[in-house]
């Protein structure tokens, strides 16, 4: 391993500009003549818009335009779409309601844009927005996914009777029923997977600019996938033909899924820029983000796990209601279906699984992918069931897991996935050793002496990353392919630019992708730059989400590098006057086998461009190659997290006193970056388990609509994390990478709740396990413990 190659803990190249304030985020960009837009949002969760009077707003100082949904419709701007088709059990397609970028006729959630003001300054736009008179006829709202399908519930969209988008299922019901009928033991759980607000550090932002000379649009946007944004805005919204729309995602400060989607604001900025003939900028405010960014999770599930003799799992069934909010966001339908039910086998050899999912509308902010996206929900179901079952069966939760682990690969689950490789027991053994599970009993006794309740919880999770291959996802309803592209451009001096369709918004691609190039070409990492996030520079790409950039994006780079090497060998053969088959390339040197002839990488690169040593008939000049890589399968990162908690029974507050994570991510490019990903993922998972909660009142008002009421995890909520890995390289891609971005968020919630319920000896506890919730659970289960 070289100091900057694969496996080296190289410091992030991008951090210098970030920590010296030289990052260029969307809000750092100002266009000549730029105007500012303010979105007036519905204060009501469900209301008819009977009239909008913009006359006095238009006369306010600095105002350039006041626009409504009627103007948008008048200009034939298309609706936003959900790009993944799901069919119900009965074969009917999902009920996608129209989603105009500005509500027209009806507002469906508190925060739904109803009008916009474009003005010289943001203050002027806001002042004018207060002069817009909107008459609402307030309608009853429904926010609870468990109640929205009830007879008599408010009907949100005409196309979806009983607010039901689809009733989907996966697996074999008959086989599952048979297994349950003969089960020796059945564990049942009711689970609410709490609704979360993503809260990336950088709020979303957009600048739309229309050039009347060329009729070209440019969008600067906080997006995780600029090409998909361009595709949707061109092909579905109909703003401009694809070749007349450039989307630039400059530095983006975190996404966690929330910046994958195509939102109303960027569409409106583009449209408005043409209307006013000047660039239009929108920067989301923090409180606005609670209403403008797609939320995550929000499942209500009943799940059952059947066992035969000796704790052998025989079947699992689950019925889930997934809240998709007021409109279907870009990938919303795929999250509670193919990214959820397909993972219900967990790490276990489960012969039969059946899952039913009802996706529903409610008068809440749209819900879509959030770090893990379906897989945290699946893991929570499976890992809670297993832990509770172990307690009910009076078995060691480790032994119960070990007995049921998948042990031979490849392994076909009953829910589509074909696990390629893994060693689940190895991760669990290593984690137990690091967590000193053997010493837990003594630690628990010591805690009891101090009046504290101590618990230990496991989460042996699996996730499907890479999100591929395209043919497979296409057969499951995806509207796009999920490959990745790369282009390697070698300059005449030998330095290299890599253009990638992946997008980095915190992942460190400028470092890890350069490490790959440095290792393969034997050139210093400083001589490599990574270009991404601009549809004019990168031809096409699918962006970054689902831990796919390593497994898929880097594989595309490998493919392009192989082509570059092949071409370079041809150049070297002319340069050294040797047969191409005799050229060996190693550590940045081309040599002729069996001779002392050699040429450095930079010499070959130069000769590729000066083209003095070969004719155009022999070889094309230049050294630039592109590749598209479509994987053969998902990748399956897996591992074991162990959480140890201490509960203060008097207050119900939980302190996480120990955390061990042993993950199998396959090949690791940069262990420091991977560790950071695991840290962040665990923090978000702990946030979900202990504090984060998007709470709506019955009228559809978001009660936890700011950081005053929405609790984010802080450093003090986490102990020092013990992170380690096991490695079974992924056989499905050239580097053996599995992906690491979501593992922590997927594994953590179950580990925390398993630990708390171990401590308080009751399973009756929902997320988030806030202090009052734990106190109430303790008191209900063991009144003596909670008493003073």
């Amino acid at each position: 391993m070289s100091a900057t190659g694969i496996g080296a803990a190289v410091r992030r190249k991008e951090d210098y500009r970030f920590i010296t304030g030289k990052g260029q985020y969307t809000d750092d960009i100002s266009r000549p003549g730029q105007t500012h837009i303010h979105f007036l949002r519905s204060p009501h969760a469900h209301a008819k818009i009977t009239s909008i009077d913009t006359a006095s707003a238009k006369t306010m100082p600095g105002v350039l335009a006041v626009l409504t949904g009627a103007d948008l419709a008048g200009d034939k701007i298309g609706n936003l779409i959900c790009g993944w088709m799901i069919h119900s059990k009965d074969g009917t397609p999902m009920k996608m309601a129209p989603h105009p970028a500005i509500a027209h006729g009806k507002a469906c959630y508190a925060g739904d844009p109803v009008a916009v003001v474009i003005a010289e300054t943001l203050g002027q736009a806001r002042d004018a927005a207060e002069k817009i008179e909107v008459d609402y006829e307030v309608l009853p709202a429904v926010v609870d996914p468990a109640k929205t399908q009830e007879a008599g519930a408010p009907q949100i969209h005409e196309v979806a009777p009983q607010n039901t988008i689809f009733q989907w299922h996966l697996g074999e019901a008959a086989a599952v029923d048979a297994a349950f009928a003969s089960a020796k033991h059945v564990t049942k759980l009711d689970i609410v997977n709490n609704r979360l607000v993503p809260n990336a550090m950088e709020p979303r932002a957009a600048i739309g600019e229309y050039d009347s000379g060329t009729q070209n649009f440019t969008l600067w946007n906080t997006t995780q996938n600029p090409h998909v944004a361009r595709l949707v805005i061109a092909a579905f919204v109909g703003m401009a033909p694809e070749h007349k729309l450039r989307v630039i995602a400059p530095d983006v400060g975190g996404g966690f899924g929330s910046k994958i989607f195509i939102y109303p604001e960027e569409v409106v900025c583009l449209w408005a820029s043409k209307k006013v003939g000047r660039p239009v900028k929108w920067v989301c405010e923090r409180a606005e983000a609670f209403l403008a960014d797609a939320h995550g999770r929000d499942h209500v599930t009943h799940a059952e796990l059947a066992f035969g003799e000796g704790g052998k799992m025989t079947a699992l069934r689950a019925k889930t209601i997934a809240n998709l909010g007021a409109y279907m966001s870009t990938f919303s339908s795929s999250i509670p279906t193919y990214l959820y039910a397909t993972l219900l086998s967990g790490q276990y050899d489960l012969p039969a699984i059946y899952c039913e999912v009802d996706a529903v509308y409610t008068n809440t902010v749209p819900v879509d992918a959030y770090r893990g996206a379906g897989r945290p929900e699946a893991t929570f179901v499976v890992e809670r069931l297993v832990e509770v079952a172990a307690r009910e069966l009076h078995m060691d939760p480790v032994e119960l897991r070990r007995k049921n682990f998948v042990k031979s690969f490849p392994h076909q689950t009953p829910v589509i996935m074909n696990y390629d490789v893994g060693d689940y027991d190895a991760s669990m053994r290593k984690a137990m050793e690091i967590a000193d599970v053997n010493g837990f009993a003594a630690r628990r006794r010591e805690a009891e002496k101090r009046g504290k309740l101590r618990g230990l919880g496991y989460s042996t999770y699996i996730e499907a990353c890479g999100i591929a291959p395209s043919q497979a996802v296409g057969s499951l309803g995806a509207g796009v392919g999920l490959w990745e592209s790369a282009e390697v451009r070698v300059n005449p001096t030998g330095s290299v630019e890599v253009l990638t369709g992946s997008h980095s918004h915190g992942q460190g691609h400028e470092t890890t992708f350069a490490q790959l190039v440095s290792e393969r070409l034997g050139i210093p990492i400083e001589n490599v730059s990574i270009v991404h996030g601009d549809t004019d520079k990168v031809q096409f790409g699918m962006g970054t989400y689902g831990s796919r950039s390593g497994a898929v994006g880097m594989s595309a780079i490998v493919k392009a590098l192989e082509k570059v090497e092949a071409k370079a060998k041809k150049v070297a053969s002319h340069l050294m006057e040797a047969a191409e088959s005799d050229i060996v390339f190693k550590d940045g040197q081309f040599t002729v086998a069996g001779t002392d002839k050699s040429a450095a990488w930079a010499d070959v690169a130069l000769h590729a461009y000066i083209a003095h040593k070969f004719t155009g008939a022999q070889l094309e000049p230049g050294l630039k190659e592109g590749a598209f890589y479509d994987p053969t399968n998902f990748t399956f990162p897996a591992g074991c997290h162990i959480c140890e908690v201490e509960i203060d029974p008097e207050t119900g507050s939980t302190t996480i006193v120990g955390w061990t994570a042993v993950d199998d991510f396959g090949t690791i490019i940069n262990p420091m970056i991977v560790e950071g990903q695991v840290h962040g993922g665990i923090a978000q998972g702990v946030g979900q388990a202990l504090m984060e909660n998007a709470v709506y009142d019955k009228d559809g008002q978001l009660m936890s609509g700011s950081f005053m009421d929405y609790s984010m995890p802080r450093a003090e909520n986490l102990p020092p994390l013990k992170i380690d890995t096991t490695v079974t390289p992924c056989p499905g891609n050239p580097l053996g990478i599995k992906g690491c971005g979501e593992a922590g968020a997927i594994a953590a919630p179950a580990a925390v709740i398993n630990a708390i319920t171990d401590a308080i000896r009751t399973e009756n506890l929902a997320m988030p396990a806030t202090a009052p919730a734990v106190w109430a659970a303790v008191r209900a289960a063991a009144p003596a413990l909670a008493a003073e």
Partner: protein
Amino acid sequence: MYNFTYHRASGLRQATNLLGKLDEAKLLAGGQTLLPTMKQRLAAPANLVDLNKVEGLSGIELQGRALVIGAMTRHAEVASSPVVQQAIPALAHLAGLIGDPAVRHMGTLGGSVANNDPNADYPAACLALAATIITTKRKLIADEFFTGLFETALMPDEIVVKVSFPLPKKAAYEKFRNPASRYALVGVFVAKRPSEIRVAVTGAGTSGVFRVPAFEEALKKRFSPKALDGLGVPADGMSSDIHGGAEYRAHLVGVMAKRAVAAAME
């Protein structure tokens, strides 16, 4: 934020005059509540009178048997002051628990007591320590100063100048934080004074900071956590929100009070 007119007062008299003369005028101290509220357009004072350049409003001084702290003294100064740590360590501890470091370096004692947020920390200290709030017009004891949710006895053109805390024999503050806002979900300040015991509770009550006479009497007989065994406050009168119900808050008042007594005895 709406437009407003900014006035930088150079002295208390000028500040008082501006307050009396201007329409919809508000004082700007640390601004940690007022400015975010204005940015969200939830407050729209036409005039802001800035106290930050007024001389003599900040400082910490031991005057006989009282610790006197200027109204513009920042929470971080109180938290780190050796004088406060020596004289009333519970008060330094309390100041160190307010908000986050940014808030503590801007927020002021005077701003906090004048705002009388029902979840703020300082009102509990003032009430339990029987502090005197010294204003540009008069001296008010804490019991008379705090009059309800976000309400005080301050007149429109009256400015808090300093707060005098009589030194207790023992005192402690125990705070259970709201995990989101870092305000007190329940905070209990217990002070053993030469003549009396005081127990003041913030965060919990629907009418703001309050004392618990039953706890005070029990602790007067025996200053020990055990003295509070079996005693509690009724859930009725406790606030209830997404962070905790009334019953939980009532329970926490008892728990935090015992812990405060135990801490005061250390």
